[in-house]
Structure formats: C-alpha cells, structure tokens
C-alpha cells in the first residue's frame, strides 16, 4: 500500500478540512483558563468540604434534637386536656368511657370538632362543657 499510492496521500492534514482559523493560536490560552478554573473549583471544594460536612452534621443534629424534644401535637395535647377536664366535670364512668373513645384512633367528626373548637377558644370552658354534654348524649 505504501508504495502504491503517491506520497501526497500520506499527509492527512492536506486531505482533511483544516480546523477553524486561529484554532491553534487560541487553544493554549483557552486550556490554561480551563485548568485554572478547575484548580479553583477543586481548591474551593477542598476548603469547603469540611464546612459542608460540618453544616450537614449540624443540620442532622438539629433534626435529631427536634425529633427528641418535639412538643405534642395540638391534637394530642387537646385530647389530654379534654381528658383532664372531663375528669373534673363528669363522673368516673363517663370519663373512663370518654378516655377509651379518645384512645380510638378513628375519631369521629364530632370529636374532631370539639377538639378544634376548644383549641381555638381554650378559655371557653362553657362551650367545651356543652360539647361534652352533647357528646355524652350521643354516646349514651
């Protein structure tokens, strides 16, 4: 093959389209900027890696504390308060029944309503009593 084709066919550069004008003149500077950028990026990562780890750890710690010391949800504290009030206002049998009912997770709409109203008007004990009475009538 080497001897069958004239020498001009052995120069690829002469047969192919040349790269765009100025390509080789600009490439060294372009590449230098690229490696500089890469250096900056890698040193930034190096410097901030510990900070990133630290920040993530701190956030995780916060989440852990929040989970450990989370306040009772309004629903839970309301149930507890309702139970205490019912204990004070009604006889033990009703209170026990009411407590049993509260422990049932499938709460009725009426029960939800009582909780919500009490939560929005915590000082209005009369309203609560009325609701509890209504509730009692519904139950028995």
């Amino acid at each position, binding site marked *: *093959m*080497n001897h*069958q*084709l004239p020498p001009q*066919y*052995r*120069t*690829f*550069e*002469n*047969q*192919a*389209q040349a*790269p*765009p004008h100025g*390509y*080789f003149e600009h*490439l*060294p*500077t*372009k*590449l*230098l900027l*690229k*490696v*500089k950028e*890469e250096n900056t990026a890698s040193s930034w990562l190096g410097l901030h890696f510990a900070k990133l780890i630290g920040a993530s750890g701190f956030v995780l710690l916060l989440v852990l504390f929040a989970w450990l010391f989370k306040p009772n949800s309004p629903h839970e504290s309301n149930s507890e308060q309702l139970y205490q009030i019912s204990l004070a206002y009604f006889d033990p049998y009703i209170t026990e029944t009411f407590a049993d009912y509260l422990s049932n997770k499938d709460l009725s709409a009426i029960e939800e309503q009582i909780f919500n109203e009490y939560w929005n008007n915590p000082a209005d004990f009369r309203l609560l009593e009325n609701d509890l009475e209504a509730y009692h009538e519904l139950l028995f």
Partner: protein
Amino acid sequence: MSKNTISDSEILRLFANAQTQERAFKALVEAYQSRLYWHIRQMVFDHDDTNDLLQTTFIKAWQALPKFRQDAQLFTWLYRIATNNCISFLNNKRRRFFVPMHDIGPELAQKAALGLSPTADEITKKLHKAVALLPDKQRLVFTMKYFQDLDYETISAIVGTSVGALKASYHHAVKKIEQSVLNH
C-alpha cells in the same frame, strides 16, 4: 516537539515549580497540540469531537503531570492519553442508548467524508472511507504508521502492544483498504 523552542525536560522542570507551572503548561500545549489534534482527528474524523478529546487530553495531562515518570517520553505519554481517550469515546458511542456495541463504521465513514477538503480527489475519498470502516485498533495502527510515519517501537510504546502484533494489525488494515479501494 514542533515550533516550540522549549524542550520536554525544560517543560517538566518549569512544571515542577508552582511559579512557572502555567508557563510550562502553555508551552506543552503549544508544542503538541497540532500533532495530537491530527492524531485524534484521524480516529474520530469530526472536528468538534476532536476538539473535545484534545482538550480532555491536555486537562488530564495537567492533572497527571506531577506524577509523570520521566522514563517515558512526554510525546509518547501524551499520545497514550489521547489514544485512550479516543478508544473510550468510540466505545461509548457504540454503547449509546444502552444498545450494546452497535456498528459506528458507517457514521465514521460519513464524518470522514464530511471532514475532507472540498478539493479531495476520488482516491482520497475512497481511502478515508476505507480507513473509517476499519476496526479501531487497525485504524489506530494504520494511521500512526501510514499517515504519521511513526516507527513500530514508538507505536508499541503508545498502544502497549508488541511490535509483532502491530505489524499483523497493519498488514490486515492494508489488505482491507486495498480491497475496499479496488472494489468501490
């Protein structure tokens, strides 16, 4: 080395010093960009792909130059990085869309035709098409021997294949090209 007056050993000496590292890198690119460009271009044919692979080659060289052992020539080492980049690029092209190893020969042949000079004659077109249709290893050996006129020892140092195996690859490549040029 091409037009650059800085020798390889001088480039390496300058690169070892943080103050002159950028100057050394620029000299390295200036010295080898053209040869590496055409080496890559003969493997992938398309200018844009060549440009990407050439830039990747030099960036990899920048990253690995501190670990460069001077028992190899800088030229051979850069060629090896560029060649490995090309082979990986072509293999990735074959595996694109999760379809294993589809034939990219026709695509390369088309790119080879598009990348030719408008004044290219019929023999050139046939030659480049035939080269594009060769398996990667044969194309690599053929282009390094035929177009770049490298000796088998240098090619062996670049591709990590014995001289005997390279001669066999070149022989097979020449036969295929002859057949292709004569039959089309």
